[in-house]
Structure formats: structure tokens, C-alpha cells
């Protein structure tokens, strides 16, 4: 498995979270623009035989929606999207996301692009998987400078769900909305609890022995490089070229 690319590893890891039998079934998953790894994870789940409906916002051709860019949010409002992916320029220990920028509002330090639909999607989707490949104290902070979308809500505020997990290039955290804290679920090969602590700006819980994140199986790798790549070639040509070494036929 030494030739497994980080993106393949992360896609397989996310796929397992998507299929987590302890979580409510993900029948319809939406994947935002510029998210090839989550997209690969969902295609992998499909190719493993799970009947997941997948709506890729990045697709300009064969786009899944016919009611404009509003439809994803309406669909989510209706409760028809079971799982969505979010990231953040900063993510803190209470799972708050900052997509606006650092420093004073509205990002007088480093301005990030903006909140997109996060302030809505985070609260209206039953399950959210957070994904940010960079795992550093710069990104995973004790407290975000600005909250684009909040990790937990006070009682009485309508909210369908929370972060299920945070996947980074170093580990998988589980989120516990009851105590608004992450716990370390698994560390990727080469990492330890201490190396994770050193790379993480926020406090997190460690409950007993922390396992290593399993590598993709041969079947998973074969599917990623074959059937998953086939699906993604048109929408993510650069990603497919870089990760799977394949190009769209002219």
C-alpha cells in the first residue's frame, strides 16, 4: 500500500465515515464545488454497492439541479440532503468554522472567500463531515477569529445535526455535540497522539487507545482508480490526472 496516494487514503477514510452504520443512512449526499476528495469518497461508496444519490455542485454539464443554484438549499431545507461536506480556513475545538477570514470582521487579516452556504447547511443537514487536509495550529485553532457557521447551537434553536467527524491529513476526529468537543478517533500512519497534539491548536479528548486509520483495501483502491475515476474524469480532470494519472480522452 506504499503507493497509495494521500488523496486515495483520505477518500477511502471519508467513504467509511459516509457508510458508518452507527450514523443515520446517507441516501442523498451533496458535494460542494472544489471538493474532489469527498466526491471520490462518495463515488467509492456507490461503487461498493451502496445506493447513494450523489449531487455534485461542481458539475457544469449534467448538473443535477433544474431550479437554479437555490435548489441545493431548498432541498436541504426540505430535509432531503442527508450528508454534506464542509471545511474552513479555521476550524476550532467546538467545531466552529471560519470561512470569512482572520482578524477583525470581515477578515481584515487574511480574507478567505466567504461563508458560502455554510451558515445554513451546517444546521440544516443531519450529518456533516468536516474535511481539511492541512492539519496545523494555523488551521485547527482554539477559537476561530470569526464564526461563519457554529458547531453547536443553544437549546431551542432549530438544528438538524452536527459535525459527525473532522478528517485531516493526519487523523480523524469524532465530534461530540453534547460536550462540544472533538475526540481523536484514529491517527493516520506515521502519526501519534502526541504528534497530533503538537499539530492541533485546540484541545481534544483521547478515550483509551487510539487506533491507526486503516489504509484502503485493494478493492477500494482498484475502484478508486477505475470506476470512481471514470465518473470523475469530466468534472475533475486535474485531480484525476494528478492522483490517478489518467486523462480524459480527447
Amino acid at each position, binding site marked *: 500500500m506504499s503507493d497509495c496516494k494521500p488523496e486515495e487514503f483520505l477518500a477511502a477514510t471519508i467513504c467509511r465515515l459516509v457508510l458508518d452504520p452507527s450514523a443515520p443512512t446517507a441516501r442523498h449526499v451533496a458535494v460542494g464545488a472544489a471538493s474532489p476528495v469527498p466526491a471520490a469518497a462518495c463515488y467509492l461508496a456507490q461503487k461498493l454497492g451502496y445506493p447513494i444519490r450523489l449531487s455534485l455542485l461542481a458539475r457544469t454539464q449534467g448538473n443535477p439541479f433544474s431550479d437554479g443554484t437555490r435548489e441545493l438549499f431548498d432541498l436541504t431545507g426540505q430535509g432531503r440532503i442527508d450528508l454534506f461536506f464542509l471545511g474552513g480556513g479555521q476550524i476550532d475545538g467546538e467545531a466552529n468554522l471560519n470561512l470569512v477570514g482572520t482578524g477583525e470582521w470581515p477578515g*481584515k487579516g487574511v480574507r478567505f472567500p*466567504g461563508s458560502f452556504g455554510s451558515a445554513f447547511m451546517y444546521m440544516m443537514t443531519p450529518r456533516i463531515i468536516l474535511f481539511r487536509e492541512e492539519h496545523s495550529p494555523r488551521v485547527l485553532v482554539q477559537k476561530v477569529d470569526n464564526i461563519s457557521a457554529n458547531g453547536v447551537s443553544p437549546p431551542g434553536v432549530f438544528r438538524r445535526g452536527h459535525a459527525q467527524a473532522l478528517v485531516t491529513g493526519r487523523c480523524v476526529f469524532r465530534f461530540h455535540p453534547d460536550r462540544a468537543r472533538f475526540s481523536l478517533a484514529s491517527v493516520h500512519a506515521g502519526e501519534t497522539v502526541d504528534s497530533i497534539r503538537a499539530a492541533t491548536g485546540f484541545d481534544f479528548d483521547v478515550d483509551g487507545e487510539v487506533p491507526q486509520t486503516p489504509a484502503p483495501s485493494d478493492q477500494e483502491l482498484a475502484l478508486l482508480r477505475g470506476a470512481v475515476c471514470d465518473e470523475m474524469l469530466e468534472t475533475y480532470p486535474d485531480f484525476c490526472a494528478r492522483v490517478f494519472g489518467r486523462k480524459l480522452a480527447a
Partner: protein
Amino acid sequence: MSLVDLESLAARVPDGSRLAMPPDNSLPSVALAKALIRRGVRGLRLVGVPTSGFATDILVGAGCVAEVETSAVSLGEAGFAPRFSAALKAGEIEMKDATCPAIHTMLQASEKGVPFMPLRGIIGSDILAHRPDWRVMDNPFAESGDPIVLLPALQPDFGVFHAVMADAKGNVWLGRKRECATIAHASKASLVTVERVVEGDFLADETLAPGCISATYIDGIAIAERGARPVALLDEYRMDTAYISDYARMAKSAEGFREWLAIHVFETRAAAAE
């Protein structure tokens, strides 16, 4: 049907107008944005529906913009929007951050002629804390306390977008990009560029009608071939990623951006006029 040339269309936009525009995954009129730069418009208040992209960055860079209300500004794969970021840091523009469905909802309120509309979510986000024009009330239909955000109707002065084609009646067709229909319905007037004008009446054609915006909402149309470029236009042409990367590189500095403007906004025009 009100067909004018591109520069005349740009001339209809007074300084200080509020303009609603779709981003790079929908149908922005980059052609009209460039014409607005050439016209030297000032003080625009741009609304990104629901986010902003290339057209916003060049308008901001050219000093045409006083305010940006949007849910994100980005060049997509080419990264952050350089002139927007610089102007924001320099305090040259007012920024009204929103979240995508809130932009849609504020326009839907105008579309429907109601003063506000509710939206779930948002409570707990700093976006809400920085929007004194947004309110939270208790849902009056709930048994117990159920706070919900109310968003005010947003009525832009102009909706601005690019469509595939216009017909002889002044209807425009742009397929599934229905956020442009909401923009047109919500705005006081809409200015549209199109690839071409064709005979007939889209509204009399059951296949074309669903992707059509009625002339009722369209106040000016100009032909601008490849008017969305470098952005994609449905299945007519793809995104020109090299053009955007080139822009992102040059626009990192104010000088580089001025050079880019000279080549891609002013020179093109001079060349076309020859």
C-alpha cells in the same frame, strides 16, 4: 424588443446603482462588466447571487465598486479574488457578508412582493451579528420558543447577466440557470447580453419556454459574442481556465491589474473599433 449596442447598455447604469450578478458557475455578463469599466462607472453596489467571481473582481479592481454584498468572492480553482482582497484590506469597499440561501431568500422576497422572508439556520453565525438589517423573531406558529431569522426583501436596481439568445420579442433564453430569472424578477430592471438574436417567440415554444425569461423583465439587450468568457456558457463554450489563471497572476499587483485592464478591457475595444 430593446436591442442596443454593448456600450449603450453600460451607459444606462448610473453611478451608485445596485447590481445583482450571478457568479462564475452561472451566467455572468463579463462583457457588460468590461463595458462598465470602460464607461468609468463609480460607486456600484454589487450583489453576488449567491456568490461573486471574476466580473466582481475586475469591477472592484477598476475602482467601480463601493459595496459588495455576497456569500463569497472567489476565482474558483484559480484561488482567491486578488483585487477584491486588496480593496477590502485597503478599506476601499464596504463588505456585506451573507450566506448563499440568504441572498436567494432576500431576492425571492422581492420577487414575491413581500417585505421579508424567513430562513432557517444562521443563528449563531457572526454573519447575523454583522447584519443589523436582519432580524430574529420567534416563529409564531411554534408551540414554544423557536427563534428564526427574517431577511428583508432585496431589490437591486439592475439585474445583469448573460444569456444564450434573445428572440424577436425580447425574451431571453438561458436554460436551467433559474437564479437569473429570480434576479430579473426581483430587480427593478434587467440588462442582458446575449450570444445572438433569433426569430420567433420562445414563449410560444413548449421546449424553450421553461428556460426563458419573459421580455416583461428585460429592459435592455446587447449582443456580446462570447459575452460570458472566460466563464462557461452552458454547453456552448467551456471555462477558459488559462485566461483566468493568467488574470489571477497579473492581478496580484495593482500594476499587473492595470496592465491586464489595458490589454483585455481597453485594447480589445480599440481593436474592435478599427
